[in-house]
């Protein structure tokens, strides 16, 4: 079961990740790669949020702050002349892990609406820090001159090679998140969400479990920020704004909370909708707003849920 699900995951993610290059090769238009890169990166961030939202019941309304942390860590290192991907990864893990630990320790003292609001407030603190600090480039953001390098193993500015790196990285991260959710730890997390009283009585430390999940999720989001910084060659306070956090929530819900592939499907759908609508009108928000409302009101299981239903009805259900 476990090996099979891991293989299915890998297979599916590789298929998803290879759509971009196939289309790009077919049309000769490497811009397609940029869109698909963005989808994958957003999917990683959304999956990291889904991990604590869908399985841990933690509504982090400041999750995008960790996109910012990842992006700034890369930016500051790269501009100091350190471009090695390994160094970037380690730094991002430490930075987002530590901040996640502090944020989580504060926020997890509260629950429900207070949790939503305190995560928002904590993220705002980071946002204002980024905006105000001249070392971070302030509101203008931080231009990153060099993408992360792998000791000359690949050319970061070749569109296909760079896509391959982003895709490989994203696939690995999503696989890791999926694995975590399925792991014994994932079961405990669900237990702590489902009935904290019972979980405590079974001897599970609810706080520690939730905090670990929170920190891990922050690290994954930080790594998504690393990718985002590499893709945009830029770090901006905007990455950490509360609207981005809102968008991440939207993507998770749109895709289907607590569904393994929800975030990826949500990211596809979100970027697709944004992309398509904004080609017709600059007032795309007037359509997207109501769409979001209807989606929440009537499709609670998200797109992944809707698809499940359709395929069930078609008798596609395997096993």
């Amino acid at each position, binding site marked *: 079961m476990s090996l099979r699900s891991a293989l299915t995951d890998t297979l599916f993610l590789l298929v998803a990740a290879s759509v971009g290059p196939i289309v790009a090769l077919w049309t000769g238009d490497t811009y397609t790669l940029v869109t698909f890169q963005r989808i994958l990166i957003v999917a990683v961030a959304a999956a990291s949020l889904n991990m604590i939202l869908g399985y841990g019941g933690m509504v982090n309304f400041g999750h995008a702050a960790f996109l910012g942390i990842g992006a700034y860590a890369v930016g500051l290192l790269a501009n100091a002349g350190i471009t090695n991907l390994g160094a970037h990864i380690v730094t991002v893990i430490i930075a987002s892990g530590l901040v996640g630990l502090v944020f989580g320790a504060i926020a997890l003292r509260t629950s429900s609406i207070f949790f*939503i609001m305190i995560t928002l407030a904590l993220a705002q603190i980071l946002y204002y820090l980024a905006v105000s600090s001249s070392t971070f480039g302030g509101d203008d953001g931080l231009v990153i001159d060099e993408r992360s390098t792998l000791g000359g193993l690949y050319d970061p500015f070749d569109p296909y090679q760079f896509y391959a790196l982003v895709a490989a990285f994203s696939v690995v991260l999503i696989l890791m998140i999926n694995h975590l959710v399925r792991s014994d730890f994932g079961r405990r997390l669900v237990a702590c969400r489902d009935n904290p009283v019972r979980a405590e009585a079974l001897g599970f430390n609810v706080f520690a479990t939730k905090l670990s999940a929170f920190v891990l999720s922050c690290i994954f989001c930080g790594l998504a920020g690393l990718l985002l910084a590499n893709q945009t060659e830029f770090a901006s306070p905007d990455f950490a704004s509360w609207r981005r956090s809102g968008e991440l929530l939207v993507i998770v819900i749109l895709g289907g909370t607590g569904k393994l592939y929800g975030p990826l499907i949500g990211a596809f759908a979100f970027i697709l909708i944004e992309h398509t609508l904004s080609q017709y009108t600059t007032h795309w*928000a*007037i359509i997207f707003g109501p769409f979001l409302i209807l989606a929440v009101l009537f499709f609670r299981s998200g797109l992944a849920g809707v698809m499940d239903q359709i395929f069930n009805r078609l008798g596609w259900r395997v096993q």
Partner: protein
Amino acid sequence: MHLFIEQLLNGLQFGILLFLIAAGLTLIFGVMDFINLSHGSIFMMGAYFSLVFQRLTGSFFIAIVLAGIAAFVLGVLLELLLARRLYHRNHLDQVLVTFGLILFANEAVTIIWGTQAVYSGLPESLEGQLELPFGISYPTYRIFAIGVGALVGLLLYLFIQRTRIGMLVRAGATNRETVSVMGVNISFLFTIVFGLGALLAGIAGAVAGPILSVQPGMGETVLILSFVVVVIGGLGSIRGALFAAMIVGLIDTLGRAYLRDILSTILSPAAASDAGPALASMLVYILMAVILFFKPEGLMPIQKKR
């Protein structure tokens, strides 16, 4: 000393504005357990409505009242069409639906009034400075804003303490079941409370219009701050909201005014001028994090009986 008193007045005025918005938010949360991000959009609509009514009636004062009424109607419609479908849903769903409303409202305002900021001026009677005792002179309009805020706050207090609906609101905030057991038409009560919250936000928007820049998205900064107020004060507690609004208003204003000077006693002037404004913008959020760390339910939580 004059300077300090003026800064206190500034803080008071900002706090009262925050209170008007936060009071509605906390009412809606306390009675219906509903988290309404679109409250800031109603604040924005209040500012726009007041401009429309100024043009129609020619009177600044009538326009404020009419803007409040229009916001009330808007709130009632919102409750009837959307919010009541969400009371039994979780907070996340409520956040997302009202997030969608923000997107919609901003874009609708853009389409109707343009993306450009719109002119909102003052009647002559409110221009200029008012001479206060001790040789302090203070902008007339800001005194007016404090006055309107205080008046609305007082009316709200009377309404909640002295009327039957107000009594139900109080009862509803502490014990939802009792109210329905008492045979009250609960959905009517909810509609009224939602409308009332919108009314307060609308008036706040109308009053803030001449101070702020009336443009799409103007409600969002205020929204986040008033959520901070509501959470610090304790969800559902109007007294808490008043208290917290004053704290936030004063801390924010005094932080901006004095933080740099305070910091420069320990840091170099350059570092102080760097850190001062950065810290000032984070101050209220840090305050909130600290308060919630020690009192996870806010300063004056309502004792819920279920």
